[in-house]
């Protein structure tokens, strides 16, 4: 019974990793900003 519960929990964790991580990656935006931009020099990107 304990082994079965352990298997269920492991499966749940793996499922979360498989499904959630790509979703998190999808919401990440890679950005290039020019370091010499006056506004950036004042401490704010863009």
């Amino acid at each position, binding site marked *: 019974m304990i082994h079965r519960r352990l298997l269920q929990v492991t499966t749940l964790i793996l499922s979360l990793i498989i499904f959630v991580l790509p979703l998190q990656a999808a*919401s*990440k*935006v890679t*950005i290039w*900003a020019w370091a*010499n931009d006056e506004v950036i020099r004042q401490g*704010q990107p863009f």
Partner: protein
Amino acid sequence: MSWYQEENSGVEFDVAHISGDQRVFLERLYVAMAASAAPDFTWLDGGHVKQLAAQALLEDVTEVLRGMNFTPGEEQEVTYRGRLYAAPYHATSRGLVKRVDVFGEAGVDPHADPVFDDLVTWNQKLSKFAPDGTYTRIGFAPWFGNWDARGWIWTFGGDLVIESEGRFIPVATMKNNLEAFEWIDEWARRYNRTKAPVPGGASFDTGTLAMTIASTSNAANYIRSEIEFTTSPVPHPPQGRRITWGGGYVVGVPSGAVNKTEALKLLVFFASPRVQARRWTEFQSLLPANWDAIRMVASRLDRAYEPLLDQLPYAVPRAPMDGEWYRALRQSEDLMVAGTLTPQEALERAQLVMSARFEEVFGK
């Protein structure tokens, strides 16, 4: 970015700050694009957009920006074949600035707008000499300030590139361009073929240069330094036209962006009047490029900006490959001022350099 995250929780950014000048930034972007490692969203100099668009390296963002009103020069710079390929984020305007203290000392009205020939007569009145005859102050020289050879070329009614059915043709040797260079050459003769007639340098900031062409960004610095100045449109010869040129930073989405959907939302965010107005309110250095944002902040602008803002409708967009035009024309101008090249030879040199580059980048 934090402003965007305030309204869009769950979005994360991976921001790379790219150092170097604008040309280095562009080169690095080209390398990243070639390696399929371009960012989803990027800062760009507006003068680089047309060449990237012609090479299909930027996403068409016309539809997401529909309904927004940008300053005309900045909008033209990001337009290729009638479509927008970036969002203008910052606008610049340029005009003739005059130091009130120096004009007062020389008995010239700083509030008057000069006609073209006044540049010479006012220069005579505003110049000062040491006992040995060297200049301690000059009124004006066309190579000082933030206008450059390309500014004078447009002022004389000339151009650098013509666009025909999406193709770009360099035209550095056209007649009006030659007249502009001949006029600059006259100033070089006036100053005995040196670009530095005042020993130690002539500068508007220190009052050793009475009038020059300055941008809205320069004006912000003068205001901070408490230099009292007035502004006029840049005077033009009869064959020329009233112009200003601006150009600023834009934001764009490289083709093939992995997170294109979020990147386009970010682009609309940065293009919006409220964000551009908020940025001006918090930093007060770079003018918005969105007309509605300019209207939102207009009442808080220093009065010295008014004549510069009046110039915006006359803005000429910079030519494709603007950074390279700047260098080619600057080198040609230097050689002409020194007397090494005639105005015609100087322009032929620039045409040769830029024709080769245009072929390389855009094909024959």
